[in-house]
């Protein structure tokens, strides 16, 4: 099951977390009270040039010094603090959420074309794979992920999500089967600028994971969703595809459809399938992926999970359910259901 939602204001007008909290709770039918989370873009304007690392510590006295030391080896901690939380009767605080604002030292990966991003990616992979009681679950600039085990309202109240504001929000209401109760297993998943919320199960996970691991990514979250964030990072950031083409690679048209395309279009579609066959995501899913500039929602090739789109002024909405969109924007102008594999895209107006 799971319920997902996303909204972007294309003029980057900030929205506080109140409405998305309400909207996500509309979909409690789709969750089980064992995981919920929010991602917000534009949340740390005063630190917008630094990587905001959100970390779950198991036991902060045992773990934090080691993490600080690792980060200091690779750059400078500009500021760090505990993420404020507020006790909730139905939510057991099993981790201490912390945030760092971090500036990597780009000299340490001088050969790379994007040394800062690569250092942060490396650190996230390393820290999470080592499992020393620290888990980095959010690592983008001016982005924050807030998640925990519990119902969406409780998680929202735990972080007082209404105190945060941003121009792009994702939300997720989880019905876990794999890792219930584990905070790391809650969505959204994030890497650098990319955040993902996902409803469904990726039957091609083994293929996707082995593909992405051959590029140095490490899947450490025991769940199929993180692979989506890494695939998008690879296709868009490293291989330079547009978001539209990346979606076409992950959920491509069928060969029957490709065979009857115009020659030029056919060549592109065929080449995408040949090059990225191992990135093709199979099984039932609806996914919303976001970065600083855009939000993309799409489903598997035969749409085995629901996805609804909506627009209102400069805002683009996407969700598992229309009711959630209407809860967020009662005056919604246009609501529609895209076809399988057809993306809903909302981009920042330059």
């Amino acid at each position: 099951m799971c319920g997902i939602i996303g909204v972007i204001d294309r003029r980057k007008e900030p929205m506080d977390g109140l409405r998305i909290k309400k909207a996500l709770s509309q979909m409690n039918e789709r969750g089980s009270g064992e995981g919920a989370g929010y991602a917000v873009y534009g949340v740390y304007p005063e630190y917008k040039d630094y990587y905001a690392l959100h970390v779950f510590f198991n036991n902060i006295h045992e773990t934090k010094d080691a993490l600080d030391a690792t980060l200091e080896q690779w750059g400078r901690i500009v500021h760090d603090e505990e993420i404020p939380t507020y006790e909730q009767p139905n939510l057991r605080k099993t981790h201490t959420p912390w945030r760092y604002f971090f500036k990597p030292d780009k000299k340490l990966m001088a050969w790379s074309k994007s040394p800062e991003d690569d250092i942060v990616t490396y650190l996230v992979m390393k820290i999470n794979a080592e499992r020393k009681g620290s888990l980095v679950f959010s690592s983008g600039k001016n982005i924050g992920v807030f998640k925990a085990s519990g119902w969406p309202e409780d998680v929202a109240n735990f972080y007082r999500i209404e105190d945060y504001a941003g121009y792009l929000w994702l939300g997720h209401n989880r019905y876990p089967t794999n890792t219930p109760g584990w905070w790391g297993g809650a969505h959204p998943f994030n890497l650098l600028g990319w955040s993902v919320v996902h409803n469904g199960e990726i039957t091609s996970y083994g293929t996707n994971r082995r593909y992405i691991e051959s590029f140095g990514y490490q899947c450490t979250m025991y769940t199929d969703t993180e692979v989506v964030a890494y695939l998008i990072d690879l296709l868009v950031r490293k291989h330079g595809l547009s978001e539209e083409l990346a979606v076409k690679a992950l959920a491509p048209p069928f060969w029957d459809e490709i065979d009857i395309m115009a020659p030029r279009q056919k060549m592109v579609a065929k080449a995408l399938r040949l090059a990225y066959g191992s990135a093709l995501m199979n099984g039932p899913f609806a996914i919303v992926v976001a970065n600083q500039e855009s939000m993309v929602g799409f489903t598997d090739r035969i749409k085995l999970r629901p996805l609804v789109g909506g627009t209102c002024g400069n805002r683009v909405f996407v969700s598992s359910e229309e009711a959630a969109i209407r809860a967020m924007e009662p005056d919604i102008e246009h609501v529609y259901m895209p076809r399988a594999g057809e993306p809903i895209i909302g981009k920042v107006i330059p």
Partner: protein
Amino acid sequence: MSIGAIPSRYRIRIDRDQCMLCERCIESCPYGVFRKNGETIHVDSRKCTACHRCIAMCPRDAISLLEHPIDYRSHPIWTREVRESIYNQARTGKIILAGMGNAQPLPAIFDRLLLDACQVTNPSIDPLREPMELRTYIGKKPSRLEIRRTPEGDLDLVTELAPNLEAETPILIAHMSYGAISLNAQKSLAMAATEVKTFMGTGEGGLHPALYPYQDRMIVQVASGRFGVDINYLERGAAIEIKIGQGAKPGIGGHLPGEKVDADVSATRMIPVGSDAISPAPHHDIYSIEDLKQLVRGLKEATEWKKPVFVKIAAVHNVAAIAAGIARSSADAVVVDGFRGGTGAAPRVFRDQVGLPIEAAIAAVDQKLRDQGIRNEVSLIASGGIRESADVAKAIALGADAIYIGTASLVAMGCRVCGNCYRGLCPWGIATQREDLTARLDPREGSVLVSNLIHAWTLELSELMGAAGINSIESLRGNRDRLRGYMLDEGILKVLDVKPVGA
């Protein structure tokens, strides 16, 4: 001194009440088991190979066959096979020849791998109602793409795609040469490959003009004997395969006994009539990996870089590193042939004792290519011991792009795996050149049998994929999460990168 006769391997019995003396058994058996004497049919069981042709043709079901009618004293080490080989070699002083694949009673890893299916959390996909894609491209794939937006806003592919074979199923037909098998057998396979839109290999025996109509579905082989190779041959094939080795006999060359080299085979192979066609163990122009690269590029140059070039090797202990070397040679696909791969003729000691199981070889090669970031450089075709559609699914889940079937395609045409292919007397008209025997195999009927088999396996494969919630073959490839090992030891599980059942 004589050691006398060794016990007969088979005993044939005729039910005299049922027998109507129609003599079809006599006609059927080229080995001379049956002979008419007055009003009875005499049987010489010692000549029997258990090919079953007589049993299949008897209108009254009057013939029965018993294997090992006479026991040796049982012994776990000194098996019947060991003792009989010694008697044989003590007599002849020679290497023992054998046919078909490895006959050692080793467990097949395929049988100890179980496939996955969906329940509740994700829906299975019904191939009768939803599209299911088995289309398989074999050849080099780009690792990344350059796509340009034209001024009109269209997308334009800048990256040049290497030639790929396009098959509608991942099941291809293996290389079995004209000479090893009959022209009618090759025609049957070629027509079947065309019918189901897949490909077949010519083997190292040249391309008979009767197969030209099917050349777009033929992969022409260049092996160490270079039999039948000229520019006409290379240009006719859809792809070219360099054969370095073969799973049934890794490290040695080909053997076609002179008995099978008639006028037509001789013309197609470009060798004298009746001569043994013994291809050398190594290619005489390949003594290192860079020599292979020259041959790959030479063949590409000769065919204007229009055709994919495959390189076939036997699965040997260091197969992964060898495949990685091949992937760097400009080759478009690497074919790995496991130790159960069949053959028309091989020394028994090689057939039974040298090489690796294909399952382990696929896993090792696929992982090595990924570790080195060159998986897209080559397709991986697996062969040797694929017996049913589940084996195909498991081979692909372990990491193969496609598979070859050899023995299975012959069994479809009647072959009983009797293992006497090297004698050239195949009663099913398959592994023989004797005209009265080859006439038994009608290519039209043979092709229907083979295409039915591939069609049936392809259907089963789509059902298995649908049950696993997968609607495209790419998502099964290398998807080892959808396999579990049952009664496999930790070492093998590690090589296969597969979890045990329940995990």
